């Protein structure tokens, strides 16, 4: 054994793997994997991490409605607060840590410049109801963002205020319903492909429509013949995602648009996958009447563990006058203003949110767009598509590609290659966790069995892609060779083993309760 000059061994003498150790630590921690209780188990209500004066001489003027009973919120000192959340953060996987190939979610790099820009006090510290003379730069930014979104889509109008993709869908479908009602033509049905995001039918139902599903063809595209058969004077709109959730461009998109318009209906496009075509094709050229963006997908604003998002909607000429309030008005003269309340006989369908929408996300998205420029956005779309096809070409001999390529920004596989192995899509996804990756989207879209939807985005280097391919091939070959141990209980190396979701739903515990109250 070689020894260093402090007499400490430089190599381990024992090759015990972590999993072969059969003792627990006294602390509950496992090295860098630190166990962390709930804040309510760490401290009571007598601790606080802020210095605020306790006003003693005080007579509240609240009509005798003082809160006398205990609230129950535990407080932590500042050091303990930082430690609590730092420990929790280390139980999470994020884009910053590795490949995050979550199909249809577009987990691309989140530039930190965007964060810095959104925090400039002139953007982050302005109130939505300040006098308009004091927020001219904010209105100008909203106009500039609108210009980029309209230019990239070739559409003549945009509503910025929707708060997320599903809110954008609501915005688009409400405009469609308002347009039908304005011409005295109430319609009842919205057509959605089987492969649609769940938000599409849910949104249609919220606008009072019945949802009719249209099937996919064997090549993964909308069955245009079936669509045409379903189109009649009761159909208000079709909602189609393009590129679709199978990662394919709808080749007959213009025929679809023509048929939809001929039936007096509108074409709503779910723009969740716009990243594949930004700078390459404009929905306005393809007959789209309304399309939402997900700024948190296409334009790199962070997903933040589930939001906030931002879902601006572009409109065609036929729909633009029905757009929601408020919006920036370009009036004569130099000062910009907001159209906040409906005028007499205003065709706008109304207001979707208390204020102007997700300004913080507008700044981040514009920062991303300005950084890329028109040239860089196009390059990003091309790189995303190139990377997806590279994965597809590198994996299709060991996994089951669902459809003929080329694909757009994501590649769809199904579980045929796992047939008779005893390994499911879920097992395969959990084994990816042990490989150090976030799993791909699983069991969606619903058009293939055991779907695995892989989206690398433009943010991965070839080195990262090759490493990822190595893992995926290794897993696929191991599963099909009948060696299933690494799948059976996966993940083994994550902060938790598989969690019992049935128990959680059967006996819902949705909050902490003090033991004596339980």
């Amino acid at each position, binding site marked *: 054994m070689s020894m260093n000059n402090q007499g400490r061994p430089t190599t381990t003498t024992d090759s015990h793997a972590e999993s072969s150790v059969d003792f627990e630590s006294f602390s509950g921690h496992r090295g860098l994997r630190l166990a962390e209780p709930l*804040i*309510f188990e760490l401290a009571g*209500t007598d601790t*606080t*991490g*802020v210095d*605020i004066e306790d*006003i003693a001489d005080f007579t509240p*003027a609240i009509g005798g*409605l003082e*809160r006398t*009973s*205990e609230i129950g*919120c535990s*407080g*932590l000192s500042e050091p303990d*607060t930082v430690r609590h959340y730092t420990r929790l*953060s280390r139980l999470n*996987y994020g884009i910053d840590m590795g490949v995050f190939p979550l199909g249809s979610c577009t*987990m691309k790099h989140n530039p930190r410049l965007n*964060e810095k820009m959104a925090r*400039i006090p*002139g*953007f*982050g*510290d302005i*109130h939505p109801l300040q006098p308009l003379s*004091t927020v001219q730069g904010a209105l100008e930014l909203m106009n500039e963002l609108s210009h980029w979104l309209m230019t990239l889509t070739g559409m003549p109008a945009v509503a910025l205020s929707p708060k*997320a993709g599903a809110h954008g869908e*609501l915005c688009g479908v409400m405009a469609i319903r308002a347009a039908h009602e304005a011409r005295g033509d109430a319609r009842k049905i919205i057509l959605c492909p089987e492969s649609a995001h769940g938000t599409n039918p*849910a949104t249609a139902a919220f*606008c009072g429509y019945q949802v009719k599903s249209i099937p996919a063809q064997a090549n993964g595209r909308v069955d245009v013949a079936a669509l045409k058969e379903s189109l009649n004077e009761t159909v208000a709109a079709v909602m189609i995602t393009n590129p679709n959730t199978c990662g394919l*461009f709808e080749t007959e998109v213009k025929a679809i648009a023509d048929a939809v318009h001929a039936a007096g209906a509108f074409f709503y496009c779910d723009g969740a996958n716009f990243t594949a075509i930004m*700078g390459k*094709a404009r929905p306005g050229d393809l007959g789209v009447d309304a399309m939402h963006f997900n700024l*948190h997908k296409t334009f790199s604003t*962070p*997903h933040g*563990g589930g*939001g*906030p998002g931002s879902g601006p909607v572009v409109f065609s000429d036929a729909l633009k006058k029905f757009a929601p309030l408020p919006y920036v008005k370009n009036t004569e003269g130099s000062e910009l203003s907001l159209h906040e*309340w409906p005028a007499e006989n205003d065709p706008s369908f109304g207001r*979707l*949110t208390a*204020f*102007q*929408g997700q300004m913080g996300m507008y700044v981040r998205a514009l920062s991303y767009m300005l950084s890329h420029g*028109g040239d860089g956005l196009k390059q*990003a779309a091309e*790189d995303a598509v190139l990377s997806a096809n590279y994965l597809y070409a590198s994996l299709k001999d060991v996994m089951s590609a669902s459809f003929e390529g080329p694909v757009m920004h994501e590649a769809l596989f199904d579980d045929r290659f796992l047939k008779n192995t005893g390994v499911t899509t879920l097992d395969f996804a959990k084994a990816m966790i042990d490989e150090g990756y976030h799993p791909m989207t699983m069991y969606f879209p619903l058009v293939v069995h055991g779907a695995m939807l892989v989206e690398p985005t433009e943010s991965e*280097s070839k080195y990262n892609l090759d490493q990822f391919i190595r893992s995926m091939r290794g897993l696929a070959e191991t599963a099909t060779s009948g060696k299933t141990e690494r799948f059976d209980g996966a993940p083994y190396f*994550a902060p*938790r083993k598989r*969690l019992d979701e049935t*128990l*959680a739903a059967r006996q*819902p515990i*949705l*909050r*902490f309760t003090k033991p004596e109250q339980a």
Partner: protein
Amino acid sequence: MRYLPLTNTDREAMREKIGVSHIDELFKDVPSENLNPEIDLPRHKSEMEVERHLTRLASKNVAAGSVPFFVGAGAYKHHVPSTVDHIIQRGEFLTAYTPYQPEIAQGTLQYIFEFQTQVAQLTGMDVANASMYDGSTATAEAVMMARRVTRKKRAILSGGLHPHYRAVVETTTQYTDDEVVRLAAQPANPNAEMKAIIDAVDDSTSCVVVQNPTIAGHVLDLRPLAEKVHAHKALLIVAVTEVVSLGLIMSPGEMGADIVVGEGQSIGNGLNYGGPYLGLFATNQKYIRQMPGRLCGQTVDADGERGFVLTLSTREQHIRREKATSNICTNSGLCSLAFTVHMTLLGEKGLRRLAKVNHKITQDLKAAMSSIKSIEVLNDSFFNELTVRLPKNANGVVEKLAGMGVLAGVPFSRLDPKAGLDDLLILAATEMVTTEDIDALVKALREAIE
């Protein structure tokens, strides 16, 4: 381009592996006449250039922190401890997705569970969800939930509800089965406003939506209303636009609320010109299967170790599609993290103190306003917001004061131009307001109206 890791050599090698010689072969499904359109947008910019451009735009705005500031009416300028922004910028939180893979998302899931607990505690309710977009959309969701629970359609919106919230409820429910009845705003007479609500409730009522404190700042005793609402088998929905008030005022739960919705921006989140904010949504245990939005629940893993998962998802759009309780998917994750970190720093002790400081400075503001002869203060009760009647059009006064470097509040007519209340001004005072700020406001107001 600094965000794109692939080199031209990489691209070439990848094309070769795929078996194409040009990138556009991969776009062959796009109609060729529509591929690669002329797009007139500027070319890419360096970090420095982007910073310069955006900083120039930002400099055209007046930041709240740079002037005496009294603007509220649904969004509030509070102090956010430095720790909050540090935590939410950790990449493990910032760049995570919705926690659909719980084994590698326990950080997100545990804070959601803690957040749900804090919101339930604050509102005095049994359970809360993982957040909505903002207070206004949460209110609309609550109205639709009340219809599902009661199987009745008639929702009554009080006159004291934020006019923008009323507009959002009306817009969101215009194509559903809900019928929305909107009562007139009576900011000068909260007792009459309350009587009108109580009188409007009958057996056809699905819910009553009431804001506390009201848009005009009055603090309401909701207990008699709750009694009436429950006697008619309807639900009482209480909207709270200033959550810091819950550190001083009896909780909606204690006053009989069935659903509490709120705007959580005040805790942990900046003004951001209106978003992103976070909607709070809390209710009683018996209604959980009718709730909108995500819920995090406690469970165990295969080793029996405690862990958290998203649960009761059969209510949600990705499972239930057109039969879902809401179409919401992405919510306000990172804003709820900011909320829960700030709330953890405060604890009950800090929140109660913060609420008292807010109320105290607003008492000082009231005294200062009362010292101006031509101004009438409309509030006997209030938390950190007052409505005053000016001898002039409030909009003009606010504009004039902005020119003098004082952001004086929200003219009622900006929120509700048709109410005929053009002389009313809503003023908010948080812990950020100093005595000097109040002096500056008084001086500027005297100049503008006298």
